[in-house]
């Protein structure tokens, strides 16, 4: 069924492009650029499940990415598990945590939930900074042996890259599948009017807890892979509040509620950010520009770029989801 959606094939094409481009000529600097874009797309797509589909703002989305990184690095280094298994386990553990958290805080409606997510971020960061097995505030380093088992550092980095691209494609496919499912319809109903949805038989608390834990899974896997690639982790990198916020800017810029919107916003914003960070004049002001961009989108174009495209070409909805 999903195979008959033209957009499914577009996603695969994008992923193939991501894999082919740096492999062609063994271009490592291109790979490092693309990896940041891929992470941006993963974060924005999964955030879209909460903000765009369900109408619940999650300010602390980065918690999943950071926790995934911690669990992954702990398993690969301390327990010397292999990379794929640790990343998978990291994803499962983090989404289980998210499910339990979700059952507690998703009884909160709308804005109260948004506030709780800020609290979660600070609470988890406080916890990890005090947690002995994870090295408190100094964090953890990857032992070099973990690279050896994958055939040396150079190969290990490429493997991590391919896996991250796979997670990116999977993020978009999950968004697409949910959008076209009965479960997705339930989420949209919650977004439009939660009371009405409950009256019509949508188990809102359960739906919200499930989507919250689904939106945790792939970012956690991506975190495990990314921090494996970086070789180290500490609380301030893992739970970078700014990245959490920038995820929201990406999503709003591209267009909340749309699969390609999240990906497009992630790509454009990441490009803009790396341009700003490397420019000598503007490097200090990238947050100001991001904030200004978000304000403009909220005030003048709440649908983002994709909303604008849909208005220009209503038929584009059929192909570009």
């Amino acid at each position: 069924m999903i195979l008959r959606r033209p957009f499914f094939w577009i996603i695969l094409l994008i992923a193939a492009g991501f894999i082919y481009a740096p492999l062609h000529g063994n271009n490592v600097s291109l790979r490092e650029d693309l990896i940041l874009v891929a992470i941006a797309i993963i974060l924005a797509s999964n955030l879209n499940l909460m903000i765009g589909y369900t109408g619940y703002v999650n300010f602390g989305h980065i918690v999943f990415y950071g926790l995934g990184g911690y669990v992954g690095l702990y398993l690969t280094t301390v327990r010397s598990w292999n990379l794929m298994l640790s990343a998978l386990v990291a994803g499962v553990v983090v989404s289980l945590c998210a499910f339990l958290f979700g059952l507690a805080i998703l009884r909160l409606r709308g804005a109260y939930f948004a506030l709780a997510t800020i609290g979660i971020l600070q609470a988890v960061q406080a916890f990890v900074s005090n947690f002995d097995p994870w090295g408190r505030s100094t964090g953890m380093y990857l032992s070099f042996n973990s690279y050896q088992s994958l055939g040396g550092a150079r190969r290990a980095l490429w493997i991590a890259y391919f896996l991250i691209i796979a997670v990116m494609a999977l993020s978009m496919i999950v968004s697409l599948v949910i959008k076209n499912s009965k479960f997705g319809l339930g989420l949209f109903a919650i977004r439009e009017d939660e009371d009405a949805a409950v009256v019509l038989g949508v188990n809102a608390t359960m739906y919200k807890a499930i989507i919250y834990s689904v939106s945790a899974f792939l970012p956690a896997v991506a975190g495990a892979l990314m921090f494996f690639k970086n070789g180290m982790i500490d609380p301030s990198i893992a739970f970078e509040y700014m990245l959490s916020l920038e995820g929201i800017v990406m999503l709003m810029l591209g267009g909340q509620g749309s699969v390609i919107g999240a990906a497009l916003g992630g790509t454009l914003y990441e490009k803009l950010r790396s341009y700003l960070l490397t420019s000598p004049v503007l490097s200090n002001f990238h947050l100001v520009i991001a904030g200004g961009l978000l304000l403009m989108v909220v005030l003048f174009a709440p649908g983002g770029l994709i909303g604008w495209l849909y208005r220009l070409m209503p038929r584009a909805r059929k192909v570009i989801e």
Partner: protein
Amino acid sequence: MSGVLASMIDGLLVGAVYGLAAMGLSLIWGVMDVINLTHGAMIALGMFCMYLLFAAVTINPYVLLLPTIGAGLLLGIVVYWMAVHWVVGRSMLMSLLSTFAVNMMVIGIGTAVWSTSPYNVNFVLPGITIGAYTFTGNHIAAAISAVVIALALQFFLYRTRTGKAIRAVADNREAAELMGISSTAVLTIAFAIGIALACTSGALVSTLFPFTILSGSVYQLKSFVVTILAGLGKPFGALVAGVLLGLLEGVVTPFIAVSWIPLIEFGLFVVVLVAFPQGIFGKRATA
């Protein structure tokens, strides 16, 4: 044992400042149903406002609260017309995001100007010594200032025409408009007061602890906890709840590391939200 008591009294004093910060958040939330995510940034700006004023004219910083309040009011009007006016009455998502965008801009500019290194206002009032414990004068003065400002706000809201208009708009905006109240003007004033309260509490905090441009977020979290404890739109309840939170911090700090405090506050936040959705001082919902 007496160490715990001393720590509690100190917590009580600092709690009054938390309460003042939360009053600003609570006022804006109650009147226009907007959760002001610029709150933390405004607290941080208040800290730096005090720092700059104190560096320019070295007089008692508690006198400098007056110009800080003025600056806060002006800032509030600017932010209201920049980001808030257009989203009042639209979905909560939009007002969360627009105030949040302003927050990013302020933090971005602040980081560029002051970096994230710590600053402090170098001023010490003589303290009061009881037995082996000394309560610093700054803590006492800050608490007194916070209570005085809170009382002034209470008087303004309940005894003046403008204050009554603000409460009327909070109760029912359409009915208030039918009675001839210009709700736009009222919302601007209420927002400006809310921001001024945030700046003032930031200024008070700057006389107690060292701070960075990012410090605001810690007090923002505390303000949320306090506002939830007090129930929405209950400014004076916010002061009381702030003192309670300070007291709680005072009780736990002798026993655990300070870095655990966000975890405790967050736990409190969720428990209160789930158990008392109307706040501890709020009325129970009838339906």
